[in-house]
């Protein structure tokens, strides 16, 4: 709770800086503030408490994921400094929006009430719509913002409808009350229907197949930093929230009572396989790196959805997977931001010869792509290992084999980029060594490798 209040306060401060004419200091101060929030959040870890009639329920799950979101936001704010250099008058707005977005994200994993959940998702989404369209004079960015807004508000509507139906069935918005009454033998059919609508809405936010059509266009059109935010923070938030919804409302036992569990599992398996396969196969033929990472994100969503099959045991695995994926994503995007700073597109040709002109950033991008492809010793490998282990334990060996085949396919497009960096000749001069981009890239990849060397640190948090 303190975390949420502190984040909101920090957001308001960011807006005040504009008035106080402290624009130059805004990025360092916000980073320091977020580090303070991180420390505050760390202090809350382990304490199970609820606030305001159980509107906010702080648990290990919520604090652990909040920490991940805060770390990601720190990286994203650090990258803002260079990205918005040409719009000095707007930087405080952009940073403030990111901080408010973080507030929405934290609310989404610490809700104790479906109303709070919806509030969180709206705070997050509206911030994202604004950021997607934030490059006002660029028609592509406008298109992305519009598309995302239309599709996103539609999804929000579906979620809201689902919440209403669940309220109709349960007579309460409160998660703990729903948790108890979900076990009663006679449940109206509205409960599973509402559940389906909510899951559909969340799958839309996660960008899982078949609700993924917005993702590539929006990713490509948005400013690169917003794409970074969407593909790391927003995706991780959405999947964590979906997981919390399913675990919190006791969906698995409830469906088991009504003989619907098998259907639920089949649907999850199908969506997971479809997301992995469609994402990977479509990614193979992309020339725009942002689009490619959008499709790669869709396939990773498929992997993460596998945790929904073993909800009771896999919170730690999900935390590990999301951390590994998001850290690799941040590292990759900081290199993309550097390379495509003065370009009007993000095609692979821009990366030609990066291995010669800038070996450090090329190595960082290589490492992050290897992590996403699941090569040891990077944490992406362990994430996949733990996930597969968990899933085989639950008896889904077929699903794991499909996932393995998909991992092989994914190597194809990740290596396309690596090859472009190392075996093609450079076609442009790259000057300048922006400190914050370098620092973000190196720190996030070091964190990624550290997670790979000591996986127990994160994996055992949610025991």
């Amino acid at each position: 709770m303190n975390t949420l209040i502190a984040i909101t306060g920090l957001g308001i401060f960011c807006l005040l800086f504009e008035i106080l004419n402290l624009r130059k200091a805004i990025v360092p101060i916000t980073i320091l503030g977020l580090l303070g929030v991180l420390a505050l959040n760390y202090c809350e870890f382990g304490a199970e408490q609820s606030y305001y009639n159980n509107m906010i329920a702080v648990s290990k799950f919520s604090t652990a994921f909040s920490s991940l979101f805060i770390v990601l936001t720190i990286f994203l704010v650090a990258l803002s400094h260079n990205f918005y250099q040409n719009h000095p008058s707007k930087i405080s707005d952009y940073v403030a929006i990111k901080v408010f977005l973080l507030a929405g994200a934290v609310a989404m994993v610490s809700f104790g009430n479906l109303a709070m959940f919806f509030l969180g998702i709206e705070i997050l989404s509206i911030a994202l719509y604004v950021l997607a369209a934030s490059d006002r004079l660029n028609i592509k960015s406008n298109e992305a913002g519009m598309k995302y807004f239309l599709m996103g508000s539609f999804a929000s509507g579906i979620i809201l409808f689902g919440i209403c139906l669940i309220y109709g069935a349960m007579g309460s918005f409160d998660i703990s009350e729903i948790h108890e009454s979900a076990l009663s033998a006679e449940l109206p059919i509205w409960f599973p229907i509402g559940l389906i609508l909510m899951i559909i809405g969340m799958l839309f936010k996660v960008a899982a197949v078949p609700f993924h059509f917005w993702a590539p266009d929006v990713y490509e059109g948005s400013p690169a930093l917003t794409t970074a935010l969407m593909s790391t923070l927003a995706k991780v938030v959405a999947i964590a929230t979906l997981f919390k919804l399913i675990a919190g409302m006791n969906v698995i036992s409830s469906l088991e009572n009504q003989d619907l569990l098998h259907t639920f599992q089949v649907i999850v398996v199908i969506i997971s396989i479809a997301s992995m396969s469609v994402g990977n196969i479509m990614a193979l033929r992309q020339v725009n790196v942002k689009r490619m990472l959008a499709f790669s994100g869709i396939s990773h969503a498929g992997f993460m959805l596998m945790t929904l099959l073993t909800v009771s045991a896999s919170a730690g695995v999900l935390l590990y997977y999301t951390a590994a994926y998001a850290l690799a994503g941040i590292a990759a995007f900081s290199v993309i931001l550097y390379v495509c700073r003065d370009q009007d597109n993000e095609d692979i040709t821009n990366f030609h010869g990066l291995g010669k002109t800038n070996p450090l950033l090329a190595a960082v991008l290589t490492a992050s792509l290897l992590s996403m492809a699941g090569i040891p010793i990077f944490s992406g490998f362990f994430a996949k290992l733990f996930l597969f282990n968990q899933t085989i334990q639950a008896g889904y060996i077929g699903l794991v084999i499909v996932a393995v085949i998909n991992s092989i396919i994914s190597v194809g497009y990740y290596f396309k980029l690596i090859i472009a960096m190392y075996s093609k000749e450079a076609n442009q001069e790259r000057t300048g060594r922006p400190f914050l981009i370098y620092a973000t890239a190196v720190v996030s990849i070091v964190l990624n490798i550290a997670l790979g060397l000591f996986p127990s640190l994160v994996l055992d948090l949610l025991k």
Partner: protein
Amino acid sequence: MNVSTILIILLIGAFATYFSGDKLASKVALLFSLAALGCSIVLLNNYNAGENISVINSWITQPKISFALNADGLGLAMVLLTAALTPIIIFSSFGNDYKNAKAFYGLILFMAFAMTGTFLAADGLLYYIFWELALIPIYFIALIWGNGDAEERRKAVVKFFIYTLAGSLFMLTAFIYLYQKAGSFLIEDLYKVNLSACEQFWIFLAFFLAYAIKIPIIPFHTWQANVYQKAPTVGTMLLSGIMLKMGLYSVLRWQLPLAPIAAKEYIYIFIALGIAGVIYGSIVALRQKDLKKLLAYSSLAHVGLIAAGSYTLTLDGLRGAVMQMIAHGFVVVGLFFAAEVIFRRYETREIEEMGGIRTQSPKFTSMFLILVLASVALPSTFNFVGEFTVLYSLSQINIWFAILGGTTIILGAYYMLRMFQHVMLGETNSKTFADVTLNEGISFVVIIAVLLFFGFYPKPITDLITPSLENILQVINKN
């Protein structure tokens, strides 16, 4: 001192090489690889004295994964092979200039680190990690420092990478499945698991995919010749000298003991695949015009025979296979180095453009001849000991296997000597051929000395490997 010391030396060496700058890199790399060789010899002494040089530490609690390195005779023999070949390979490259040498030599040491780890790991997952790690450096070595057209090279290298990764991911699935049964990734726990014949079949198949691609066994060999040709010679030496031994070693260490019923059931099929590789490799080698490609196909024939020997599941077969692995490692490095020596002077790999080297360079000719003869397993060379033992064990299974496998010697003698004739003999070439330099000579002499010494006196190696091979056979035959 325990076996992790070698790994630490090589890892530190890799980073030290990278940070020592382009000029010093090759020397620093040589120094660290020699240190690793010295360390492994000391460890061998300690092991023979009965000291415990294994390591076991818990690493990840859930799922239970340990940092376990176990050195038995077999593992140590392979570590010694790696440790001995790495300095030779690094030293052999001293005549070449590489762009960005610090990264190049750093990657070589890193690869040696990963391969040594593969030979030592006693935990399934740790083994898998080392196995995959070895792939990354060779990928970059072949991609960045390779020769020939960039576009073709890119295709060959990517194919190689995706092939090998695909195989190993199925192995990973098999390991995870085994973990569900055993509750631990430790090799001795995995050995104890009781699996039904059907489960064993699938496990065996998953492992087979990984190893058949790495070794390579027919029909998974299509990546090999192109990559050998396109990679820089150092990369080819690492691939053929050490890396493919990883696959053969893993057959003995992991595949056979983990799925013994399946191994016994399908023994004929897998021996036949190995033998098919022998015949196919030899026949294709006959028609090669490119020297490196010819050596690549001859290598395919030889490893086919080694694989067939491993699948016989007899002590002789396994022993012959391990000895032939070591012998082949040395001889193939020597042969590829000879090809590199010719390339340095003639700038070509086409056999037709060579010839008449003998009159200009008698020293090189005699050394090359010894290597060629060793490669066709002439008695008194180490290869003879290995290949003969394998053929003997094959004859115990079925005399036809031995006869067909024996074609490796007959056909091998034919294409190798024909190659020798075209390359070294004939009329004097108009291009001058300077005789071998001191550096080149040292590499050749070391390799030849090893081959001849163990050819006359293989006992140290048989003594070293036999107890651990007997242990493996015991596990295979327990049920």
